[in-house]
């Protein structure tokens, strides 16, 4: 209700300012109005003196005072304001800056966006490219040569060869062969191109290698060649180019060949240091030593050359290298100097023994050197040729010796023994046959030689003996021939391979011996007077009647012959023919004696049997021939 009143009041007071004022004052609740209290408090101390003037001036004083405060306030805020203004302007500037930066950033961002996307794509691309590069590098590594390697393959201007040349060459080969893989893939063009370039590299490398090798080979002319490791490798590598290899080895052969010739000539003419060993030619007066030293030198040199060659090609597969052929070429150079010298020796040598020794020496060395070089090599064919010549020279000399035997035939000596030409010839034969003991030739050769030598000597000897015996009587001739043949026989029996000859000679001895034996037997029978009787008895036929009735076969004649026969039995040697005693061989002599005695015994037996045969009408035949054939045999044998 109050509020309604107040509203009514308010409407009244609004119309009356004083009432309004009054109302307002009345309505003021002072104890609640702190502000008012504060203001009153301040006001209370406002006056020092409470007087009218003060009271009158209160308002103005307060206003004054308020004014002063406001002025003070104003001046204080003036500074603040100024500062704020400056802050403001700073912030303003910053803002502007920021704005500017923002703008610029915006612009940059706008611009960078493009760059970033470009970078990203480039980055991706670069990764891709890197991968490709790796692949390409790997490819190049596998399919291309490094510059270094190319340089090595090209070599240096002076033609030298780098130690890594063979590694590089092997790589070229590897790449070339690897290209075959490429050809099977879809990189055929690359494959073909690389292949082509590798082939070119290879060709020029091989050519360089060949030139180098050839040059090296040309220089191996020292006594002992330097077969370097590099050269061995070169030769090994050239196996892929057989023609080039062949040319190189030919060059090696040529160099060695001249080295061997030089060495040979040095050994012949200069000898060792200070002349020991002496030059081989110093012994040219001693054919065996001269030729032997040359051959031994050739043998040793062939062995050494083979070793050098083998060390050169030690890394090569055997089938590529014509070792034998090269070795043949190397040893070919000495053929002529060797041949000339030996031929000179051979043609000026007369002595068949020396010739035969030379022949055997040549045979021996031919055999020995064949163990080192091929028998087709020129050196060995030369040795064989010279050996053939020596063989012919030997037989020529032997034959001419034999021919001289027949030119001037000696008469047999009184003892029916050997003529001096027989003795000499047999000594020569012994010397010749003995040569074989001092050398090693194949048994076949020896056998063949012996046959030929014997034919060459024995046949003319036999002929000579026959001619020389031609004017002798049969008995002398038989004894002389038996003696001569015996001497041949004893000579031959000391040697091998003479069996056939010995057999032939024995047969001839037999024939002559037969003559001698029958001559001896008839001589004995003649001397004891039994020859006539023996003849008659042999011719007697039963129809002639009994023997006792035939003239010359009467009892008395027989008895007287038997007496003589008895004295022969007592001294059988008394009736030996002088020719039989002259037989040199005791066995032949004994055999001659035995066989002639046998003949005598046979004759006696026939005579004896005839006489004691009752048909022959001898009275007391037993008394006429008191000795039985058995007793005779017993006495004589």
């Amino acid at each position, binding site marked *: 209700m109050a509020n309604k009143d107040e509203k009514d009041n308010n409407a009244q007071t609004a119309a009356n300012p004083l009432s309004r004022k009054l109302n307002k004052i009345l309505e003021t609740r002072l104890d609640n109005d702190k502000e008012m209290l504060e203001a009153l408090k301040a006001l209370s101390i406002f006056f020092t003196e409470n007087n009218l003037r003060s009271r009158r001036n209160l308002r103005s004083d307060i206003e004054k005072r308020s004014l002063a405060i406001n002025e003070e306030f104003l001046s204080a805020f003036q500074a603040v304001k100024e500062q704020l203004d400056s802050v403001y302007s700073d912030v303003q500037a910053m803002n502007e800056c920021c704005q500017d930066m923002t703008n610029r950033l915006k612009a940059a961002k706008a611009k960078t966006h493009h760059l970033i996307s470009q970078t990203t794509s480039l980055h991706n691309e670069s990764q891709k490219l890197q991968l490709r590069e790796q692949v390409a590098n790997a490819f190049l590594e596998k399919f291309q040569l490094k510059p270094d390697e190319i340089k090595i393959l090209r070599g240096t201007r*002076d033609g030298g*060869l780098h130690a890594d040349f063979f590694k590089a060459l092997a790589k070229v080969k590897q790449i070339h062969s690897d290209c075959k893989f490429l050809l099977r893939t879809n990189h055929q063009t690359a494959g073909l191109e690389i292949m082509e370039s590798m082939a070119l590299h290879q060709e020029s490398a091989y050519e360089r290698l060949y030139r180098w090798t050839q040059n090296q080979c040309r220089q191996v002319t020292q006594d002992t060649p330097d077969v370097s490791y590099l050269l061995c490798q070169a030769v090994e590598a050239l196996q892929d180019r057989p023609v080039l290899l062949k040319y190189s080895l030919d060059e090696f052969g040529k160099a060695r060949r001249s080295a061997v010739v030089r060495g040979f000539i040095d050994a012949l003419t200069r000898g*060792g240091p200070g002349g020991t060993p002496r030059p081989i030619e110093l012994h040219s007066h001693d054919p065996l*030593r001269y030729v*032997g030293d040359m051959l031994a030198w050739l043998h040793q040199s062939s062995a050494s050359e083979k070793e050098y060659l083998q060390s050169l090609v030690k890394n090569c597969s055997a089938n590529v290298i014509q070792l034998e052929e090269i070795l043949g070429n190397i040893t070919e150079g000495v053929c002529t100097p060797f041949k000339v010298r030996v031929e000179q020796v051979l043609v000026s040598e007369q002595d068949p023994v020396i010739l035969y020794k030379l022949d055997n020496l040549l045979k021996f060395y031919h055999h020995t050197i064949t163990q080192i070089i091929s028998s087709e090599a020129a050196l060995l064919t030369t040795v064989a040729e010279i050996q053939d010549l020596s063989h012919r020279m030997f037989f020529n000399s032997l034959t001419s010796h034999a021919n001289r035997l027949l030119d001037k035939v000696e008469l047999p000596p009184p003892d029916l023994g050997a003529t001096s030409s027989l003795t000499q010839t047999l000594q020569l034969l012994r010397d010749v046959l003995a040569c074989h003991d001092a050398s090693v030739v194949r048994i076949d050769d020896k056998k063949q030689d012996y046959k030929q030598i014997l034919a060459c000597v024995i046949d003319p000897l036999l002929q000579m003996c026959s001619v020389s015996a031609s004017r002798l009587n049969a008995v002398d001739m038989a004894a002389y021939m038996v003696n001569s043949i015996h001497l041949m026989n004893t000579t031959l029996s000391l040697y091998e391979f003479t069996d056939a000859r010995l057999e032939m000679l024995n047969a001839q001895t037999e024939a002559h011996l037969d003559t001698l034996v029958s001559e001896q037997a008839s001589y004995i029978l003649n001397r004891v007077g039994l020859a006539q009787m023996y003849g008659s008895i042999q011719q007697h036929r039963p129809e002639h009647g009994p023997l006792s009735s035939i003239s010359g076969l009467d009892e008395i004649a027989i008895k007287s012959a038997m007496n003589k026969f008895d004295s022969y039995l007592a001294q059988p040697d008394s009736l030996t023919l002088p020719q039989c005693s002259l037989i040199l061989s005791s066995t032949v002599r004994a055999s001659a004696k035995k066989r002639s005695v046998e003949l005598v015994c046979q004759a006696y037996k026939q005579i004896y049997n005839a006489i004691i045969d009752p048909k022959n009408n001898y009275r007391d035949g037993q008394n006429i021939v008191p000795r039985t054939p058995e007793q005779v045999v017993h006495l004589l044998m």
Partner: protein
Amino acid sequence: MAAGPYNYSYIFKYIIIGDMGVGKSCLLHQFTEKKFMADCPHTIGVEFGTRIIEVASQKIKLQIWDTAGQERFRAVTRSYYRGAAGALMVYDITRRSTYNHLSSWLTDARNLTNPNTVIFLIGNKCDLDAQRDVTYEEAKQFAEENGLMFLECSAKTGENVEDAFLDTAKKIYQNIQDGSLDLNAAESGVQHKPATPRNPINTDQPPNKEGCAC
């Protein structure tokens, strides 16, 4: 092969002499093959073997010529003395006759080799001491009187075989070192291979000399 460009820097030529059956071929075989060959066939004429040895850290190739001792081969084997740097003269300690023949072998060796040839006397078959027919002292004295090197060896057990061949090589090498052996002369029995090849390998060519490889 990796050892260098050469397998060896010298070649020494040896000859082995002495009566038949003293064990020359067995000694050679023992030295080259390190084996005893009990049923060694008779030597026909001349045979040879090689082995590379080392003396004073030099590789030396020995080329050894083994001769037949039989009298009938004497003419042939005489031709092999020339140019030998070493001669091994062998007798059999169980057969006095082989020792008695030494002076004739020595005469051959002296006449047919060069003055620097090293002659080494070997009394072989020292494994057969029970059958000994020549005392060590006697042979030693013979060797000293004739200025020969001497060892008793056995080709069967290998005893001293290596030493005989190596000592000979050492002596020859020493002769080369002190200059008494002239390597340039032909037939000294020694051949020398230069230590550096005459055509050096072009490993380090200065690049400026190189032909342009670009």
